């Protein structure tokens, strides 16, 4: 066997100038001998509490300012269960978002055709009047339900209340149909409860963590990565299924280098082995589950030998890894993953994972899945929201009945007029989500945008989507504003406060202010009847036995659980929120909707000759496409690369570090070249790239043209018939050595 060595210095040293300077900080002496601590000491008046907005994990921390009163650094709050006092690189790099000179600075109104990016500056009054007038017009002509909110971030609560008060029920986050939706539906149909965020995985105490394509460590879901590290310390076994040798794979006892798109065959073979060898938790299965016999019959023929032909994984490896899970049970986690919209049968794949967890008895058990608890934060009193006459669901009669959240891509589809539909969306308010990168097939998204009478984009940064807006509203960053009280579920119920560390830069405003002002102009002021945000937050916090003053001091408040029910008690009688009241191995809800009640393996299309499956994922220092321009994070990673197996690179004559273009099965070529990373860490039948690069907005001075966009190359979408998820891993790319002609000419 030849040995290859691939050495990468992830962040390099720069080369500085040699000019002489007298500045220096002198010599340090008198070192303290006291024991060292990780966090800052005692109460410090130079710090303010926040929770992070760079990703959805929302870690709570402290913003520190320097002697000049400028934002200096952000570190975790020790009391916070999401961060345990330790932020991830993106959170630590938060000041880069605040200092970014490319930020949106003042309201803008479009003056030329959409997408041309020609705007004039406007006052807040003028911009909000413009929106209010347009919204009223749309309500009169088409009905208020023809407006939609697409949001991803903390401001969503305020804009959500605004649009509900207006009379629309269509509020969508791409985090559902473009990300974790299938897993939520799978867990609801199996256990009667979703997985939620942060995930209820008890990784800290697990003995075996099974990752199916989930690349923890590269996706820096802070608390989970921390707990994975704790689990490694305690000697937990990690099993990783991934066609790429991920960071998690490198820490695994078993890495299963699966052929892409065949995970369901492996999962069914594992179920087969665990049932046939009688390694399942007999007591748990008998007491809590429904449909075991049907499942047993269903997987009878699905042997590891059967799966071998599909997955290319040796039968022995499948058996051994199954035994490893059984040995650890019930302290075992078949991790549900997070971004699971892959091949269009994603709910079924997630179901197979849920079933495995049920067979091993890990749901509700220490080291498996815990029962999270949330603080119920009361809402400021307001009149009841009007009942919308229609919702997005009316655009899809009889479809996606099991989707319990709005499908962002569905809003998009229902904006493009069709004779079969009465309701086409006419206005979108978009907050904190770069739809042209988050929803696949950006061409179709643009087609929808062309049909809109109003597109309002509220963001902190110019993004691809802001270029298409009629009105752009500049939101101040999370470091400059109050927001809703964080009430995410966790082992213990807890709340966290975000407050401004400093005044907003430029002519930017917080979401609550924008929503309230807009409500006033739209005649909906009674829904926002608080005078100041401080008044509302203090009122809410006092209902919970705290106060704004206290939260400003402590940042995070953790409460005791109402009941001792983090895990099931031994012998406990349980009723699950499913049709049968049991954990449904056989799903009656899916059967009732006409779907397979037990998951089946269906082969997926394979790459044609000369093409490779496009896989994408995360890097720990970036979130989606929103951090590419952050100077601190760009310093760590300024562009993505196309990972190519050396055998493949050899056939094409591609050298490591060479810039190439990727072209997909539909002839779409990347707008920008991407660096080839020739590495043994990727299978020969696929190409991997980190999502979120290849920005086309020139207003992003650091991110423009850096790397390639995977979203651009995902033109084929495999829709999940159960809940409308947009499977994005059915696209194939080949290599090109020059840009497309029209791009080369321009």
């Amino acid at each position: 066997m030849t040995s290859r060595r691939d050495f990468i210095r992830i962040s390099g040293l720069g080369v500085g100038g040699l000019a002489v300077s007298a500045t220096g900080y002198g010599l340090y002496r008198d070192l303290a001998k006291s024991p060292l601590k990780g966090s800052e000491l005692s109460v410090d008046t130079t710090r303010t509490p926040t929770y992070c907005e760079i990703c959805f994990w929302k870690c709570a921390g402290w913003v520190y300012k320097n002697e000049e009163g400028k934002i200096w650094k952000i570190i975790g709050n020790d009391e916070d269960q999401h961060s345990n006092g330790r932020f991830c690189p993106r959170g630590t790099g938060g000041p880069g978002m605040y200092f970014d000179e490319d930020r949106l600075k003042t309201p803008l109104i479009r003056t030329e055709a959409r997408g041309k990016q020609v705007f004039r500056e406007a006052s807040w009054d003028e911009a909000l009047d413009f929106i209010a007038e347009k919204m009223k017009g749309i309500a009169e002509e088409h009905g208020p339900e023809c407006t939609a909110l697409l949001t991803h971030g903390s401001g969503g609560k305020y804009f959500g209340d605004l649009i509900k008060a207006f009379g629309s029920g269509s509020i969508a986050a791409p985090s559902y149909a473009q990300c974790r939706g299938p897993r939520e539906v799978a867990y609801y149909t199996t256990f009667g409860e979703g997985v939620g965020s942060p995930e209820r995985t008890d990784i800290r105490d697990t003995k075996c963590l099974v990752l199916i394509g989930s690349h923890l460590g590269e996706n820096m879901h802070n608390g989970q990565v921390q707990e994975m590290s704790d689990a490694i310390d305690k000697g937990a076994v990690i099993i990783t299924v991934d066609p790429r040798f991920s960071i998690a794979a490198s820490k695994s006892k078993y890495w299963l280098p699966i052929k892409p798109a065949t995970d369901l065959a492996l999962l069914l073979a594992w179920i087969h082995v665990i049932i046939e060898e009688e390694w399942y938790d007999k007591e748990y299965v008998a007491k809590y589950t429904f449909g075991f016999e049907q499942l047993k019959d269903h997987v009878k023929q699905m042997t590891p030998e059967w799966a071998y032909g599909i997955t290319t994984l040796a039968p022995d490896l499948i058996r051994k890894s199954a035994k490893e899970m059984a040995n650890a049970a019930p302290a075992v986690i078949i991790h549900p993953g997070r971004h699971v919209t892959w091949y269009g049968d994603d709910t079924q794949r997630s179901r197979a994972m849920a079933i495995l967890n049920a067979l091993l008895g890990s749901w509700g058990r220490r080291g498996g899945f815990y029962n999270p608890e949330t603080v119920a934060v009361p809402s400021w009193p307001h009149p009841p929201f009007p009942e919308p006459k229609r919702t997005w669901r009316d655009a899809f009669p009889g479809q996606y009945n099991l989707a319990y959240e709005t499908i962002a891509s569905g809003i998009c589809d229902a904006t493009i007029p069709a004779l079969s539909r009465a309701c086409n969306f006419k206005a979108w308010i978009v907050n904190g989500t770069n739809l042209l990168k988050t929803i696949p097939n950006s061409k179709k998204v643009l087609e929808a945008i062309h049909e809109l009478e109003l597109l309002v984009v509220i963001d902190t940064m110019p993004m691809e989507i802001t270029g298409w807006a009629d009105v752009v509203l500049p939101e101040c960053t999370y470091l400059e504003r109050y927001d809703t009280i964080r009430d995410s579920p966790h082992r213990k119920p807890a709340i966290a406060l975000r407050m401004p560390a400093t005044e907003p830069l430029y002519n930017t405003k917080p979401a609550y202010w924008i929503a309230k002002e807009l409500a006033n102009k739209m005649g909906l002021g009674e829904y926002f009847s608080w005078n100041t945000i401080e008044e509302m937050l203090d009122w809410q916090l006092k209902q919970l036995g705290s106060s704004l003053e206290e939260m400003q001091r402590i940042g995070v408040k953790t409460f005791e659980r109402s009941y001792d029910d983090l895990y099931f008690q031994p012998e406990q009688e349980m009723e699950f929120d499913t049709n049968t009241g049991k954990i449904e191995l056989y799903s009656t809800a899916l059967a009732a909707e006409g779907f397979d009640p037990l998951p089946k393996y269906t082969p997926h299309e394979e790459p044609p000759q000369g093409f490779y499956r496009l896989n994408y994922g995360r890097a720990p220092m970036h979130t989606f496409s929103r951090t590419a321009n952050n100077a601190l994070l760009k310093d760590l990673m300024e562009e993505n690369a196309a990972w190519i197996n050396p055998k493949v690179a050899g056939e094409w004559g591609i050298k490591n570090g060479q810039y190439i273009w990727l072209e997909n099965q539909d002839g779409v070529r990347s707008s920008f070249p991407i660096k080839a990373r020739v590495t043994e860490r990727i299978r020969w039948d696929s190409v991997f790239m980190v999502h979120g690069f290849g920005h086309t907005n020139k207003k992003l001075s650091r991110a423009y043209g850096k790397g390639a966009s995977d979203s651009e190359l995902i033109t084929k979408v495999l829709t999940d018939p159960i809940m409308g998820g947009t499977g994005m891993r059915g696209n194939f790319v080949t290599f090109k050595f020059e840009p497309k002609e029209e791009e080369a000419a321009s």
Partner: protein
Amino acid sequence: MRYAMAIDTRKCVGCSDCVVACQTENNVPIGYCRDWVVEVTDGTYPQLELENRSERCNHCANSPCVRCCPTGASHYADGGIVLVAHNKCIGCGACITSCPYDARYSHPDGYVDKCTFCIHRIKKGLEPACVAACPTKCMYFGDLDDPKSPVSEVLKVRKYKTLIPEAGTDPQLYFLI
């Protein structure tokens, strides 16, 4: 007293939080860094191994940078921490060339800069910024002369290596393997 750091390559995920934490804590200019992350892959698909390492100045006990500094700017502080007195540094760069670990850079203000083990934090009883921030808790810091310090404790029970030991600089960064 002998300050040292141990980094657990089995836990490090290469996220580079240590790099940003250092950058903000120490106001390291954009485009430069005092610490960095290395990823080494060995083998061919699918027989592969990977190691992530957070690297920085090794605060060597026998430092070529201190020896070669013409002005005495590079020096040992208490606990063996290798420092550069910026006001004495003429930016000649001899130390940069002498360092086998490439741990030093020329600051745009004209002096040579590098990791200080966050000596200003140690004085206050805090850990270095990188150690305090690391989400995987893969870094251990402390006094090797104190058998109860986190770094002494972990070196007692784990296998470790140093980088480029053949350079003979007696490095004080230990990588747990």
